[in-house]
């Protein structure tokens, strides 16, 4: 190989948002198509990002293609801003997007990139939620071939998914899908809403914010446009159930830190081996603690 030429050091300075402009334009066009066909997994030529496939490269490409000076970005992982992966992605956005602010407050963010959670605080029309997606296709559990799955989606044929749910009920008397719950968008396409808990699924329904789902490794982008129907796949006589946070007495558990009883809780084991529950959404927990300290204490007691 040719020795004697220099590294392109002058090229090491990356463009705004890391990706070249053509790539960002391509992602934006894909997003537009995804919004026009709610729930449709729009293929795009996903680029390699400088973090691992599976670490949010799909969401990141969406975020970097949309973000501009004046935007305020929030990044969360498992609901927390300070989770290692969220820190890493936020650091990367700060590095490659000068003049873009980052925040930990859901309220202040114009663009929220999240892994595994929808923020507790209701989103607004002025916000975009970007979810990171490992498996974009809910049919993958019943059909491994992508070509055949594409036909099934086109025909709205979700009979095998429904059969799986039915078999669950027969075998366990309960639907056993814990997260990534198949959700029908605008009455047609069924999506994998990313590994959000079932608790978050109803919060996609008629959400005022635009929700974009990016799967980098699988090279798909899909959308739940604002105020669009998002309905979990269920039977008329078997209601959809979210995670159960009741204690042995049937009481809804409260967050051990802020005392709220209306958030998704993480189950923790402290150093003494005691179990306790705490908000998964760190910003929500902090804001509950700051604003409604007195009132939430009352509820906690």
């Amino acid at each position, binding site marked *: 190989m040719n020795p004697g030429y220099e590294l392109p050091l002058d090229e090491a300075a990356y463009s705004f948002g890391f990706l070249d402009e053509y790539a960002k334009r391509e992602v934006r066009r894909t997003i537009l198509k995804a919004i026009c066909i709610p729930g449709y997994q729009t293929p795009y030529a996903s*680029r390699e990002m400088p973090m691992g496939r599976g670490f949010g490269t799909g969401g990141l490409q969406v975020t970097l293609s949309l973000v501009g000076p004046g935007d305020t970005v929030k990044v969360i992982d498992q609901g*927390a801003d300070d989770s290692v*992966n969220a820190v890493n992605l936020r650091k990367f956005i700060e590095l490659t997007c000068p003049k873009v602010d980052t925040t930990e407050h859901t309220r202040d963010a114009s663009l929220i990139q999240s892994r595994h*959670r929808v923020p507790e605080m209701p989103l607004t029309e002025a916000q975009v939620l970007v979810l990171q997606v490992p498996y974009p296709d809910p049919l993958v559990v019943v059909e491994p071939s992508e070509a055949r799955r594409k036909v099934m989606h086109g025909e709205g044929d979700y009979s095998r998914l429904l059969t799986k749910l039915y078999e669950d009920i027969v075998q366990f008397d*309960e639907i*056993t899908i*814990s997260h990534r719950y198949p959700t029908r968008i605008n009455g047609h396409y069924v999506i994998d809403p990313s590994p959000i808990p079932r608790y978050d699924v109803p919060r996609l329904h008629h959400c005022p914010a635009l929700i974009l789902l990016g799967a980098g490794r699988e*090279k798909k982008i899909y959308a739940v446009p604002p105020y669009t129907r998002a309905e979990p796949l269920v039977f008329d006589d078997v209601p959809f159930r979210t995670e159960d946070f009741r204690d042995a007495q049937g009481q809804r558990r409260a967050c051990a830190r802020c005392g709220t009883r209306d958030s998704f809780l*993480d189950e923790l084991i402290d150093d003494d081996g005691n179990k306790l529950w705490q908000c*998964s959404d760190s910003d929500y927990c902090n804001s509950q603690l700051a604003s409604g300290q007195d009132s939430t204490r009352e509820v906690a007691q």
Partner: protein
Amino acid sequence: MGYVAIKGGGRAIAGTEAALESLRCAEGEAGTPLSLDAIEQQLRLLTSRVVSEGGLYHPRLAALAIKQMQGDTLEAAFALRAYRSTKPRLLDLPLQETGPMRLIRRISSAFKDIPGGQMLGPTTDYALRLMRLDLADESPEAFRAVSRRFLDGVDEATLPDSFPKVVDALRHEGLLLPLERNATTAFDITRDPLVFPVPRSAALATMARAETGSLLAIAYSNMRGYGDVHPTIAELRVGYLPVMLPHPVSGEPVEIGEVLITECEVVAMYEAQEDASVEGDGTENQTSPPTFTLGYGACFGHNETKAISMAILDRALQKGMRDGPSNPSEDPEFVLLHIDGVDSMGFASHYKMPHYVTFQSDMDRLRTTRDKATAAPKPQGDSA
């Protein structure tokens, strides 16, 4: 009350960087940093692997990536690939002819002798894998003398430039179908996602930057019995391919540089009658005499295992695309979606990230179903 905070992610990440860097430099006072030249030249097969799997012919940057990633080929190829994302695609390269390659090695296992002759070149094929203990403490003088001596007394004018291609002879005899010039431009996997079914050019491009081990494993399954390619290497060549571009003014092809590549063509048996009966509506095969079929493999750098594996899988995938796959190595989706090192390594790594929200959901489902199972045992007493 106890309270567990998940805080300090930023500091923890900075800590990992320092720890990693300290291991890279663990030789301490006695150490000498690796030079990129040393990596590029002395670890040339490693560099080859990284340019090929990174999908960017930049041996210098590949050497840097190898140094930075402390010899991890997956990570080094990944860094190169990520660097590539920052660069726009400027143009489509016209079809490149591999005939005029400046070869350092070419062999054919199909013929005893071939026009131009078998040129073994730099290979470990027939080397005894005995430890060369003299290399453990190699003197710089001896090291430098090697390259001085190698071409000593050789008249460079007598060295051949290029060699005819073996498959051309087979084509001439009619044992291989004539080359069909495909008028459509090649599928660019960096700009278009794979939506199945995909054209052969998409499969070839995907395999050309695939992870060597993944490609080998699936090709090996085909060689061993989960497939029936039975390949013979018509020609394997390693050398420098002149890259030709039309001149912006005159339009004449101009050589703009060269890339080291490995190219492999395998021929495999092809029973015309059988295929005609399998193919319901394929009428053209019923009349044509049987011919060999060709599998093609090529990749950046010197990586013969990869080129051979790719050629075998190309042949297997062509069969799968035509007749439907009868084993995993003939299934385009199975092969093409599972051979990329950046994708597969990234996804395997991502399981190390926190998953406690989804695990909470998992526990909720397990507890609920367990409660139901113990509270109301099923009358039939089936496996639940």
